């Protein structure tokens, strides 16, 4: 109690210096908090936009489909798995997909295309595909399953493919691929929509309904086989945990459940590298603030050397002197964090809701980012607190140790 009283009195004793220390530490907290809010926020934003584009947060495949895709590596009884997954509150959407690399014929040109069989409604709940229709109409269930008057299935085609094949809405598209039985799959489709743009993921894709796909590949009899299940969760941060729990819940060794970090590992790695860069800039902020704090604490303890001599001469233990200095710093650090928090929180909330719109949108692999959003979370608030408090205690350690160790006589003789 005595030490606590002394610590508070000492903080109040040199008000101007304490205030400056508080402001520099509080400012450090403020900057750290904002930097962290922006990095975390931008990354969550990028991850959200990226995963909602087509990947989803978690994907399920047969075995090593991701590394070596094959027509034959199918997830069996997908219907059951889907209804199982859709019951989980965390899951917002499950999109089943069948892939078939094909050749696409337009007016008089041929181009390779990735044909994707989708469940239009589920796909719309899982990714932004529906929003990317820039001409024509998204595949609705009615449209998808009801072939048009010529008995052709409808298809949505990517922007670049449409351009290359010189196709527009209403034109006929011929797809050629290999059926599951080894036969040549060969069908005419009716173009109902053009999706994406020249830079986006689906520029060379063709989207048809699962029914159309199964007919095309001659697997019409088996309505529960797909190549991929893409899941969107209510929070991307749950992806790893959810993937792991689903993997064990499925009780099927031949299926592999992967979070987006694995599915899009190169994207994930480049983001991690970027994050390191921002940690370095935070390290620099910490360093500068710490030097300032070290300076004030060193000055404060140096000019009180005599006083420490008196305290020790009349019987204060070295540890108590050490504790006194550490406590003063600790109290200053806590108050700084509170000041920083009061300043930072409104700004963080503003950043999280409004954000900073970028002068020029950034195009990352066809995905457009036009606003930098902040984030408000325990992490964004607690990490700066831990950093400010621990760095203050670290820089106080040396002056405190010095005061604890100096002989009372030497300290008394100090001017």
């Amino acid at each position: 109690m005595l030490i606590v009283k002394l610590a508070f009195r000492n903080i109040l004793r040199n008000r101007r210096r304490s205030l400056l220390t508080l402001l520099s530490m509080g400012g450090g907290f403020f900057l750290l908090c904002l930097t962290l809010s922006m990095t975390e926020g931008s990354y969550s934003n990028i991850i959200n936009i990226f995963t909602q584009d087509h990947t989803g947060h978690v994907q399920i495949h047969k075995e090593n489909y991701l590394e070596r895709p094959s027509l034959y590596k199918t997830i069996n009884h997908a219907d059951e798995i889907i209804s199982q997954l859709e019951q989980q509150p965390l899951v917002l959407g499950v999109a089943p997909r069948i892939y078939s690399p094909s050749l696409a014929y337009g007016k008089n040109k041929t181009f390779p295309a990735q044909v994707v069989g989708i469940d239009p409604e589920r796909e719309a709940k899982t990714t932004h595909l529906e929003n990317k229709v820039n001409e024509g109409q998204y595949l609705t269930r009615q449209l998808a399953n009801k072939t048009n008057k010529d008995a052709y299935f409808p298809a949505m085609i990517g922007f670049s493919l449409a351009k290359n094949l010189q196709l527009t809405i209403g034109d006929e598209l011929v797809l050629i691929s290999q059926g599951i039985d080894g036969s040549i799959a060969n069908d005419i489709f009716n173009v109902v929509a053009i999706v994406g743009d020249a830079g986006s993921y689906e520029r060379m894709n063709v989207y048809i309904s699962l029914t159309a796909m199964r007919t095309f590949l001659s697997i019409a009899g088996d309505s529960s086989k797909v190549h991929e299940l893409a899941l969107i969760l209510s929070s991307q941060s749950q992806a790893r945990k959810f993937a792991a729990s689903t993997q064990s819940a499925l009780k099927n060794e031949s299926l592999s459940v992967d979070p987006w970090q694995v599915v899009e590992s190169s994207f994930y790695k480049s983001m991690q590298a970027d994050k390191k860069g921002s940690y370095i800039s935070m390290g620099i902020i910490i360093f500068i603030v710490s030097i300032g704090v070290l300076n004030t604490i060193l000055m404060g303890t140096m000019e009180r050397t005599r006083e420490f001599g008196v305290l020790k001469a009349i019987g204060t233990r070295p540890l108590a002197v050490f504790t006194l200095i550490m406590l003063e710093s600790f109290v200053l650090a806590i108050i700084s964090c509170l000041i920083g928090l009061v300043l930072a929180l409104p700004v963080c909330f503003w950043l999280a809701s409004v954000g900073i719109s970028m002068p020029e949108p950034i195009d990352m692999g066809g995905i457009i980012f036009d606003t930098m959003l902040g984030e408000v979370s325990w992490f964004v608030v607690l990490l700066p607190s831990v950093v400010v408090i621990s760095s203050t205690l670290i820089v106080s350690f040396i002056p405190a140790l010095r005061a604890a160790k100096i002989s009372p006589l030497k300290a008394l003789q100090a001017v």
Partner: protein
Amino acid sequence: MTTQVNITDVAKKATVSQNTVIETTHLCREFGQGDTLVKALTDANITIERGEFTAIIGPSGSGKSTLLQLIGGLDNPSSGDVFLDNKNINHMTGNELSDFRRDHIGFIFQAYNLIPVLSAQENIEYIMLLQGVPATERNKRVDNLMHTLGLEGLGDRRPAELSGGQQQRVAVARAMVSKPSIILADEPTANLDSKTGADLLDMMKELNEKQNMTFVFSTHDPKIMERAKRIISLVDGCIVADERRS
């Protein structure tokens, strides 16, 4: 080595009278070495009994402060020993020495050296707080001493709000309050005008007589030294005279 030391300690205990507060044996303190060697104190053998009121006098640089610092366990001798309450304080370190100073020695400094952030009353209480003396006992002792030293009504003032004489009286109270075996005062009156200094000395003497408190103080001032009951004279680090006066 240690056993030898312990045997001397035990032997000392047996021979030294129950009333001896301090005994120094062949106490020497040197500073520097070679050409710059300064013998600040040479072969000092002093015994101080409970209830004595002793002045250490001598010209500047004669070793008065050095002697008091050695007795108070603030400095270590180059050779020789200091026994305080029959304990060899030169063998104590860290917390042991801290606690020993807290419980057995009261210090009064020339520059008052009160804790600036504590009020007069809190300064006086400080050591008792370290010792864990209960509040009622603390208040009783503080009130008594403030009364004796004429500090009534000044308890809430910070040191900066007190005159030099008042500050030094607070310092005397702080040194007295935990009932130490001895109070060491290095030129307690040097920063005070002669009247205030003389008054302070009279108060110390009163405490010495009424409460049998042992004082050792150093001084240059003839007016101060004449109040002492015993005067130890130092010249160039050597004790040249040690006289008791009735």
